[in-house]
């Protein structure tokens, strides 16, 4: 489903976030725009520190944006007051990365799941108990779980609890910040399945943040690739994987080995490290590591352009998919 | 010191270490009558006279003196050849200047005594003649170096006396010369080689050491680091112990000139204490002998009059008495209408004790227990001295308080201040704390102050004692015996009645001074 086929449930445009620190200002997020359609999953990938969490936090207004707008359906919540936000929070929820850390160890699971309902004064005490049982069933936990505390559960089960809590308010959007990164492969599969099931039955939209490309690929309909606070490429999952246009996307795909992939990396890979966010390079932020960088890249930041409908890229010299090397790379596996 | 054979054998020289506690504010006794100031200053400033154990004046800077029969002229013949420590000659002009500028004005205790001195004549350098409008007999009781300090006119004249730098590096005519005051540590005096009394002093150096903690003082004395420690330097219990050591002596002589009296001030405006029966009941409820024994370890004896027994001529033994008698006390309280309630409590009072150390606190605790027995609940309140003074003498926001006063040789100086209504409202410490007003007592005080006939004065004071002891606005509790501790190898350390406030010119080591 394309983002333009329906009114988006979430629409972000020109979003920037700056952090002021003792060492200087970090432009953690710079001019990020995208839409999220109902029932859709948008994946966000990128290296550590590229601003994925910042994006997630800004969208749920944990962090105040320094520019841009965030719309929830028709409502602009960029500068919503705390009171207005409380209402908005029923529509947008978030699952945090570390399920152990985000669940208060002193509370029972039942109390934890009832908390959002209590905050928004939904239902009576008894109603809530019913809702909790319901939620537990939804995420595949037995109702007895309500009486126990988080530490009595395994990592995967805890993440289920986290997801259940996010779903308690029946939101339209759930932001998932690396929800499976802390989990083992076998458990990760359980959670990914749960998420797909939930999306099918509830029709929620997901903003799924991850660094494991195969996971993002698996779960997403569309994917945005971030580098140093910017979205460098955004498109359909398949077109992105088949025809990565940005050199960084390509390098990312190359560098991530997969069991069904080739035994050796296709190219030499990227050299060097990600530049410090305190000291961003001028021009295209990727030029310090880009194999194709030119003078233009060094001086001028590339504008975002649409290669094909819905496939956006911010590169002066995007790979339009004609080169044999990239198709060859995937060719072997197909 | 008349013909002490041992004195000839005694070594000259040596350093005497003395305890000084607390640290003095100033070393000049012109405005400050605090004990540590006087202890040091007594060695630097000689007075016109000194006092025997029986408080008779004996010559010092004045070789002779005469009081005219009408008491209106007093003539002093000064010793000649006396020099100030800075080498300038001492003369009658210094005495005149000191009288006019200090004794009569800023000296905290003497103002009333010298009030009637209308003129001072100095016909020559060694004669001073005081001319009074009315007699003032007590003058002769305060003429020692700290009672009527003589300051060098040449250093003080025309200056702001309170802030004269010499206040802290005093220049006197006494046997010891000021050397150094290291604050927080010691005051050092050295032998005055030009002292008028030939051959004295014996010691080379006096070292007043400031040791704030009592246990540490005891240890220092015990070790011999300190050889002379006046003014109750250690707890009584320690004194008891030290007195048993052969190396040390504990001596209660030398405080006769002070005659300290411990008393209880009742606030006569208090709803309970305004009833004289209640005050008398309290007086009966206190076992003063036990107080002297338990709290004061025998370094005190029960007082029966506001004029201590050491003021032999004025002390009246035929006065109303309040023997320890719980039954009587209870009866008086019942009579006054303060019955015991269900808990056995008649009423509650707050007690403030003089914050000068544990002895006074324990006295308070003793009183608390004693009064509890007769159904008076007591809450003890502790505070520092500034707060105590303000509470009792300025705000008069107290029920009953314990304190002590020095009586000095004449009731006029130290006793009547506690009863004279003239002090009320002035907020002056150690004056009429009880808020007592009695016209007859006031009149007697005033008359005795200007009475030229000693016999009449005695009669006046007798009546005065009778009145105030009957009314008991202030209950005399104990006559305190202060004590000094000193090394057994010292001689001549207690030689006179005002010794602690006088000089150590007679002190000397009989053996070789302790090497240290």
């Amino acid at each position, binding site marked *: 489903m394309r983002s333009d086929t329906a009114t988006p449930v979430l629409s972000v445009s020109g979003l920037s976030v700056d952090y002021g620190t003792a*060492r200087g200002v970090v432009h953690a997020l710079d001019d990020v725009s995208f839409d999220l359609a109902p029932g859709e999953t948008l994946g966000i990938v990128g290296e550590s520190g590229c601003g994925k969490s910042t994006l997630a936090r800004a969208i749920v207004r944990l962090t105040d944006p320094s520019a841009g707008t965030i719309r929830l359906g028709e409502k602009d919540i960029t500068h919503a007051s705390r009171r207005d936000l409380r209402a908005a929070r029923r529509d947008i929820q978030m699952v945090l990365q570390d399920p152990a850390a985000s669940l208060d160890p002193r509370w029972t699971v039942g109390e934890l799941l009832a908390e959002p309902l209590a905050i928004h004064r939904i239902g009576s005490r008894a109603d809530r108990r019913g809702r909790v049982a319901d939620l537990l069933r939804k995420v595949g936990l037995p109702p007895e779980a309500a009486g126990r505390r988080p530490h009595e559960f395994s990592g995967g089960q805890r993440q289920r609890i986290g997801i259940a809590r996010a779903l308690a308010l029946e939101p339209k959007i759930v932001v998932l910040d690396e929800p499976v990164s802390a989990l083992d492969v076998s458990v990760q599969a359980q959670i990914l399945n749960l998420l797909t099931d939930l999306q099918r039955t509830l029709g929620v939209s997901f903003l799924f943040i991850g660094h494991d490309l195969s996971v993002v690929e698996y779960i997403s309909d569309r994917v945005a690739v971030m580098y140093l606070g910017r979205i460098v490429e955004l498109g359909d999952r398949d077109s992105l994987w088949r025809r990565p246009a940005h050199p960084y996307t390509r390098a990312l795909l190359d560098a991530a080995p997969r069991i069904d992939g080739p035994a050796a990396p296709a190219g030499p890979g990227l050299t060097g490290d990600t530049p410090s966010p305190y000291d961003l390079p001028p021009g295209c932020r990727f030029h310090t590591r880009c194999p194709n960088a030119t003078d233009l890249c060094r001086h001028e930041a590339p504008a975002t352009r649409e290669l094909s409908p819905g496939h956006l890229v911010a590169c002066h010299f995007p790979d339009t998919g004609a080169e044999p090397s990239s198709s060859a790379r995937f060719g072997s596996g197909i | 010191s008349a013909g002490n054979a041992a004195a000839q054998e005694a070594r000259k020289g040596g*350093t005497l*270490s003395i305890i000084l506690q*607390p*640290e003095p*504010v*100033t070393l000049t006794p012109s*405005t*400050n*009558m*605090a*004990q540590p100031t006087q202890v040091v200053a007594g060695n630097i400033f000689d007075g016109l006279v000194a006092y025997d154990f029986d408080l008779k004046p004996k010559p010092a800077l004045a070789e002779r003196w005469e009081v005219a029969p009408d008491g209106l002229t007093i003539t002093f013949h000064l010793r000649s050849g006396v020099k100030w420590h800075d080498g300038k000659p001492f003369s009658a002009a210094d005495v005149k200047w000191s009288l006019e500028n200090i004794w009569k004005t*800023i000296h*905290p*205790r003497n*103002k009333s005594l010298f009030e009637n001195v209308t003129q001072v004549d100095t016909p020559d350098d060694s004669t001073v003649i005081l001319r009074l409008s009315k007699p003032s007999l007590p003058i002769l009781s305060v003429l020692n170096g700290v009672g009527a300090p003589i300051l060098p006119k040449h250093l003080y004249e025309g200056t702001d006396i*309170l*802030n004269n*730098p010499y*206040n*802290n590096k005093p220049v006197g005519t006494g046997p010891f010369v000021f050397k150094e005051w*290291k*604050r*927080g*540590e*010691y005051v*050092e005096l050295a032998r005055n080689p030009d002292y008028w009394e030939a051959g004295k002093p014996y010691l080379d*150096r006096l*070292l007043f*050491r*400031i*040791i*704030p*903690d009592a*246990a*540490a003082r005891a*240890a*220092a004395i*015990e*070790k011999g*680091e300190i050889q002379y420690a006046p003014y109750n330097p250690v707890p009584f219990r320690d004194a008891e112990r030290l007195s048993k050591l052969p190396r040390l002596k504990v001596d209660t002589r030398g405080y006769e000139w002070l005659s300290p009296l411990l008393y209880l001030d009742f606030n006569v405006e208090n709803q309970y204490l305004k009833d004289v029966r209640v005050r008398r009941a309290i007086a009966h409820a206190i076992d003063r002998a036990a107080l002297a024994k338990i709290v004061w370890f025998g370094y005190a004896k029960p007082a029966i009059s506001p004029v201590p027994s050491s003021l032999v001529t004025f002390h009246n033994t035929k006065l109303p008495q309040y023997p320890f008698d719980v039954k009587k006390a209870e009866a008086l309280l019942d009579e006054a209408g303060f019955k015991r309630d269900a808990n056995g409590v008649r009423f509650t009072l707050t007690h403030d004790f003089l914050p000068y150390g544990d002895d006074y606190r324990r006295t308070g605790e003793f009183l608390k227990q004693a009064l509890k027995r007769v159904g008076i609940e007591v809450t003890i309140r502790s*505070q*520092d*001295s*500034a*707060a*105590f*003074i*303000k509470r009792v003498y*300025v*705000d008069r926001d107290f029920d009953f308080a314990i304190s002590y006063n*020095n009586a000095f040789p004449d009731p006029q100086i130290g006793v009547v*201040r506690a009863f004279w209504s003239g002090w009320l409202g*002035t*907020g*002056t*410490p*150690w*004056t009429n704390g009880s808020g007592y007003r009695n016209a007859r007592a006031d009149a007697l005080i005033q008359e005795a102050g200007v009475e030229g006939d000693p016999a009449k004065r005695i009669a006046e004071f007798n009546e005065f004692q009778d009145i105030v002891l009957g009314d008991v606005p202030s209950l005399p509790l104990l006559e305190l015996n202060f004590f000094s501790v000193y090394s057994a190898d010292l001689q001549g350390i207690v030689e006179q009645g005002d010794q602690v406030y006088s000089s150590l010119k007679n002190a000397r080591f009989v053996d070789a001074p302790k090497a*240290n």
Partner: protein
Amino acid sequence: MLTYLRRSAAQLVFVLLGIALINFFLLHLAPGDAAQVLAGESGAATPEYMEALRRQFGLDQPLYIQFLRYLGNLATFDLGYSFRQSLPVSELILQRLPATLLLMGTAIGFALVAGCSLGFLAARRAGKLTDTVISIVALLFYATPVFWVGIMLIVVFSVILDWLPVGGMTSVEANLGGLALVGDVALHLVLPAVTLGLFYLAIYARLMRAAMLEVYGQDFVRTARAKGVRLRRIAWRHVLRNALLPIVTTLGVQLGSILGGAVLVETVFSWPGLGRLAFSALFQRDLNLLLGILFCSSVVVVLVNIAVDLVYTLLDPRIELG
């Protein structure tokens, strides 16, 4: 670095203003004033005399005028005049400061060196008898009132054994000079410094032990072991330096409390320091002096904290002043 210094200076000014304010008004709440105390000590006083004293002390002015005047003086680094002692406050403080610094410095030095050594030893022998003994002894020192320790030390080492003087800072009687004087002061310093230091020794020993054990649990120690570094060398080179970091921090924080503890020790050992001076100033309502002392001690605390920060940056390259 510059911003750091600027911030420290701002902090200093704020702290000093705060101290002036708190103390000034607090102390004026106290019942009784200097004139009354002085008069009380005099044994007698006339109202005229007390009035004269008040006028002289400036106590006859309204409170806010007194405060403004005080602040004005401060701005010109004038701490005022102690009427009671008839000396400028700064002079009084300067007289006592060396003794205070000597006592505090020695006590802290002793506590640091001995405490850290004991803590180091205990950590290296964690769980063994040495560790238990050190931990218990440290706890006992920590739990015993300072004045009590002081008096007991006097009884044992001065009175019974007669090794050390009872109190004071010098044997004034002996008229010493030069090296002999230094030795004499050192002798006098032993007991008070040990008394004051024992409490902090206990703190540092415990802290050091905990810090060492904490560092021992860190990954880089395992790394060092994995590369075959000797245990002794690991302890000294890898663990110790990291373990010193919390000690340094604590040192800065505790400085203020040491001055407080000094009041007790100076009392017990007749040490002519600032703590004792402050104590008597308090009871004599010598507010200028008390304010001056609090002021100076705060300045010292702030300065030492700056020094601590600097030392910290030396010890821990991760920290940058800014």
